[in-house]
Every structure is written in structure tokens, then in C-alpha cells.
């Protein structure tokens, strides 16, 4: 009797918990659906239409041919390779630098607040403005970076003339813009680790790096995961910086997925293909995110 009562009570409790969940999340979901579902469906729809017919309004259905054309195109593969390489390199570096800086900030040395403020500045510059500024900084003849480099004996370095350096310039500018995000999120997470835990651990004899590795890092895992997935999604979609800094060059060496889509849509007028490419990319990001999730949080189910 008591068992069944307890069971029923639990069921009721879970029921009401679910309802609360729905009530809390519904407004936001409804708003999002209302504002974003039309564009998404439109994009999906035209990915199955022939590009020419989209412009004339005749909307000719062509099945998956847009998708196949995109996947088969050299430019797409090139953009894909460039983007993948970029994502891996930038996310890894952002995490490493972000961890280093946020941990250092967490030491609460004097002047901490000022540094924290300082590090968040790059976020406040619009990406498109940052693109111009970095192009200006990297200019070979009247750029300040080359001027400073000349004091180190490096004369007139060309930042955009070779694939390697063009990619590096994009990487550097991007790191500048996005590492603050990682720093701030990790720092917030670090701050949430109660001091008692650190103290307890150090009493137990763990110190310095060991402390970090065995106590702090696992506790940071959720935050790192969060940042990782957001940054992967963002890195895949990089656009403004590349467009302004290199335009995808030289020789398409910095052509990334988004510049590819842009060109396909607005230069080549192949909206069907542009859309198909967008869907493909979205799916890829989803898959990559899902697997990153899984990898770092095995055994994490939905149930509470």
C-alpha cells in the first residue's frame, strides 16, 4: 500500500515537474519558432529547387541535384578542408589560451579586475570592423605590425601573399576576437568552484598542477564542453573576418564554407546550391557538436 502510494506520489511529482518545464520553456520556444521557422523552411525548400527557377519564380523541383553538385564541386571541397583545418586549429588554441588566462585570472592577483575588463574588450568590436582594423594592421607597407617587426629584423613581411601567412593572419585576427569569450566563460565557471574544495585538496597534499588536473579540470568539464561546442559552431561559420581580410584568397587559400556560400548565392546566383550547401554545413556542425558532446560526457542521459 505504502509502496504504491509512494510510487504514485513520485509519478505526480515528476508529472508536475514536467509541466513546470513546459511552462518555463514554452514562451521562448514559441518566439523562436515564430521568428526563425519561416526562414529555415524557405532555405530548406529552395535547396530542392533549381537555382534559375527560383529567380523566375517558377520553382522547379530538382530533388537532390543541388546537394550533389555542391558535394562534387572542387571549390566546396577546398572550402571544406580549409574550414575544418581552421576550426581545429582555432578551437584548440582558443581553449589552451583561454584556460591559461582564465586560470591565471583566477589566482586573484592584484589588478585582476582591470585585466578581466581588458580581456573582454575585443568582444565589443563588431567583427566587420575588426576585419578592417586587422587588415589595416597587417598592411605590408603602412601597417604597424610590419613596422614593429622590422625592429626584430624582419623586413616587409607579406601577410597576405602566401596561403600559409594569409591563413595565419585570419587565425590571429580570429583568436584576438574570440578568445575573450572563452576566457570569460571559463573564468566564470572557475569562480563557481568553491574555495573550500581547493583548500581541502591542498590540505590533502595535492598542489599546483596536480591540483589543477585532478580537481579543477574535471569540475571545469561542463564549461569547457559548453565553450567547445559553441566555438566549434562559430568557427565553422566564420565569415566577416575572412571576407574583409583576404576575400578568400590568395588563390582561394582562405576560402571557407561561408565565403563559398556567399559567392554561390550572390555572385553566381545559384541560390539553390547556396542553400543546399548551408543545410549540409548545418548538418555537419550538428554532427560534430553531437559527437563532441558525447565524447566529453559519456553516459549522460536525459533523465534527471
Amino acid at each position, binding site marked *: 500500500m505504502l509502496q504504491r502510494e509512494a510510487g504514485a506520489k513520485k509519478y505526480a511529482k515528476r508529472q508536475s515537474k514536467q509541466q513546470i518545464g513546459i511552462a518555463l520553456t514554452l514562451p521562448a520556444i*514559441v518566439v523562436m519558432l515564430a521568428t526563425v521557422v519561416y526562414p529555415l523552411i524557405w532555405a530548406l525548400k529552395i535547396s530542392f529547387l533549381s537555382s534559375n527557377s527560383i529567380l523566375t519564380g517558377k520553382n522547379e523541383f530538382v530533388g537532390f541535384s543541388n546537394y550533389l553538385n555542391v558535394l562534387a564541386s572542387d571549390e566546396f571541397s577546398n572550402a571544406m578542408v580549409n574550414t575544418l583545418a581552421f576550426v581545429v586549429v582555432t578551437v584548440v588554441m582558443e581553449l589552451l589560451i583561454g584556460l591559461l588566462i582564465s586560470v591565471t585570472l583566477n589566482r586573484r592577483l592584484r589588478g585582476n579586475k582591470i585585466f578581466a575588463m581588458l580581456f573582454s574588450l575585443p568582444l565589443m568590436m563588431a567583427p566587420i570592423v575588426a576585419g578592417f582594423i586587422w587588415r589595416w594592421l597587417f598592411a605590408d607597407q603602412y601597417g604597424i605590425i610590419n613596422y614593429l617587426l622590422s625592429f626584430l629584423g624582419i623586413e616587409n613581411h607579406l601577410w597576405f601573399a602566401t596561403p600559409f601567412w594569409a591563413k595565419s593572419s585570419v587565425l590571429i585576427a580570429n583568436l584576438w576576437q574570440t578568445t575573450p569569450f572563452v576566457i570569460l566563460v571559463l573564468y566564470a565557471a572557475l569562480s563557481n568552484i568553491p574555495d573550500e574544495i581547493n583548500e581541502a585538496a591542498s590540505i590533502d597534499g595535492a598542489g599546483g598542477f596536480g591540483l589543477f588536473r585532478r580537481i579543477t579540470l574535471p569540475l571545469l568539464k561542463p564549461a569547457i564542453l559548453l565553450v567547445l561546442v559553441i566555438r566549434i559552431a562559430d568557427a565553422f561559420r566564420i565569415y566577416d573576418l575572412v571576407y574583409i581580410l583576404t576575400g578568400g584568397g590568395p588563390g582561394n*587559400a582562405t576560402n571557407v564554407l561561408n565565403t563559398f556560400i556567399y559567392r554561390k548565392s550572390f555572385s553566381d*546566383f545559384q541560390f539553390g546550391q547556396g542553400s543546399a550547401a548551408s543545410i549540409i554545413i548545418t548538418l555537419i556542425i550538428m554532427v560534430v557538436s553531437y559527437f563532441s558532446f558525447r565524447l566529453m560526457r559519456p553516459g549522460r542521459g536525459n533523465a534527471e
Partner: protein
Amino acid sequence: MKTKWIRSAKQAMVLLLAVVLVLAGCAQSNNDNNNGGGENQSAVGNPSEGTNNGGSDNAKPYDGVEINVGVEAGGPAPEFFKTIINEFTEQTGIKVNIIDVPGLKMHDTFVTESIAGTGGFDVFNLDQPWIPEFAEKGFLVPLNDYVDEADLDDFYPVAIDSVTYKGSIYGLPYLVHTPVVYYRTDLFEKAGITEPAKTVEQYREYAKKLTDPTNGIYGTIIEGQQSPEPATQFTDWVLQHGGKLLDENNKVKVDSPEVLQTFKTLLAMQYEDKSSPPGAVNYNNADVQQQFMQGKVAMVRNWPYMYAMAQDPAQSKVAGKFAIALQPVTSAVWSWGFGISKDSKNKDAAFEFVKWASSSDVVTRFVKQVTNPVPRKSSMEAIKADPNIPEETKNAILMMTENMIQGTSVALNPAYDSFRNRVAVMLSKIMTKQSTPEEEIKAAAADLQKIADGE
């Protein structure tokens, strides 16, 4: 329990709907909805569509009509038009909203508007390469029925060629130009060169002579950046080697001995003669402009607009020390003008504007303010006869116009944007030595033909 869920969902929907309606309502009433399209008020006083009203009996035939003209934000021509637009309104009664569109987004904005068919812009500022594109997609109104034959004759033939596609005229130009050669008269003297280069070989030779590493001066600049401008300059180099990129039958001519030779010349100038700075493989015309005005390069090709800037001591270190010359052999002619959107609800009024902006008087005044070639014979006469224009400026204008008249109209293709992008990639790859000319030309030719065929 289920009902509670449904109830809260319904409540949320109603609330959301209410919010959206309120916001939309506010938007309609409070906002100065300037777009002239959709459900609003610019249909007032619209003369009937069929008649080509020249304003003969009525002093202001279009009184109350409003049109939107999309222009490039900050561009010298738009700025000029803004200063005198009142005269146009005085004459015709048409109120013109000159709408600044960021240069970066102009092409896309016009494309987006045309696809959506909103008619938000009556008139588009047109860069000539867009004309085949837009015309083919039906974004522009053919102007053959609107224009006055006699008036057309006043334009130089290349000027009208530049706005014609498949026999129809899609715009009227106010600026028709081609790059000229800017050269340092003082450095020419020092090097013992008496007159500007007339052939490519001479150009190359002079560039070598003028390169002076000790004083940090280069002979010329070979633009190599993967972007539209360098691709355009490259077109001229090809023409000067007797070749072309695309012929009138839409056949790509990139895989040809002339284009190969062009690349060989450019590579030689860049890497053997070293008469172009190492960074030039990533320069576009903005860099050319800056380098020249800073006195770092002796001889460059650039658009006429740079003339006035380079003569301004506040901006340029070479004011008074240079002159302009015709390009060796020939060069491609390009233009900027205005065209009418197919979605315009005021096509007649829009044409009045297009006509006015390219009219003899306006164009003459424009050129006086921003030293540029003139597209009209009557303007040329007016300039020559005007006593208030300094001799130097007059000569400059004459020279630029001369250059333009004998320039070459290039065959364009509706897919010109992608065409040019692919050319830019080819240029960049070869100039940065990522591919050999032979390889890349073949690869590019194949791609370009596909693009030209509309695939």
C-alpha cells in the same frame, strides 16, 4: 493535466500574437516608412504609364511623385548628385530620396530587392558589369523606348556600348572611364625618359629603369590581389598583349598564347625585373593609389578619380610632380550609370531622373568637380570652351576622354561577377606562384567556360 499544458500553450500563443500585433502596429504608424513600395502612398499624381510625358504643357508634370534612388554610400558621384538634386525637383516636381547603400552591399542589396520584387528602389546606381547580369535576370527595364535618339548621338559610342546588352539599353552613364597611366614627371626626367610608354615592352623597360631600391622607389605595381579590381586591371594587360578573355560569341579565350604571354610578362616584371614591390601580389587599386601618392612608385595605372586626389597637397606627396598618359595600346572601358528597376511603380519619373543624371549639363558640372572623362560630345565642347577651368585640369580631362574614346568595349556575360572572381583566383594563384601559368590557364579556362555557359 494535459489541459493545463494546452491552456498554457494557448495563453502563450495569444500573448505572443498580441505582442507581435502591437509591435507591427507601432511600426506602421510611427515609422517613416520610406520604402516607396508595398502598400503605400507614392502612387499620387502618377501620370499614365503609356505616355512618354516630356513635360511639354505642364510645368511640373510629376508633381508629388516620389522616387527612391539607390546609390553607393560615400561615393564621389552620389555626393555630387546630392548637392544639386534640388534643381531636378524644381524642374520636374519629382521628389528624390537618395538612399545610401554601403558599397560592399550594393550589388547584393539590388539583387535581394529584385528577387523580392518590392520595388523599394526605383532607380539603381549601376556599375557596368552588373548590367548584363541584371538585364538577363530581368531586373532592369529596357530603355530603348524611353530614350531620345538624338540625345543618344551625343554620347560617345563606347559610352552607349557599355550600357547595352543584347541590343537593348539598360541604363544611361554619367561616368565612362578607363584607367590611365599616372607617371612621375620628375623621375622620368631623371631617368632620361622623354615620353610615356606606347608599347608593353616600353612600359616594362621604363618600369625597370625607374626602379630605385636605394630610394625605395619601384617602377610600377602589378596588382595581384584576389579581388575584382586587380582582375579588371589584368583585363587591360591582356588586351595590350593582343588577347582577350571572352569573345563576342561567349567563347572563353583564356587558354591562348596571348594570355600566356601576358602572365609571362607580369611574372617577369614582378620577379625578375623586380620593378613591382613584393607585396604587390596582394595589392589592389587602393594600394596603388596610396603608394603612388606617397611617392613610392613611379608609374601606375589607375582610374581617373585619382587625379584630383593626387594633386591635393593635403593628401598627396606628389602633387604637381606627375602627369597622366594614355595606356599603351588600349584598355577596357567601364562605366557607372543609372538604370530603372523592373519593380518601380514610377518608371516614367524614374527615367526622368536617369535622363537628368546623364544629361549634358549635369555631366559637365560633375566632371568639373571630380576630374573625370566626359561621356558626351557636347560636354567635351563645353569643357574646352570654359575659361574658368585651369589648363592643366582641362588637359587632364581631355586626355582621360581621349583614352576612353579609343578604348575597347569588353564583351560581358551575365555571369560576369563569377567570371571575374575566377579570373581573380587565376591571377592570384599565378602571381603568388601557387600554380604555373600553363597549368592554371588551362584549369581556369575550363571553369570560365562553364561559368560563361551559365552552368
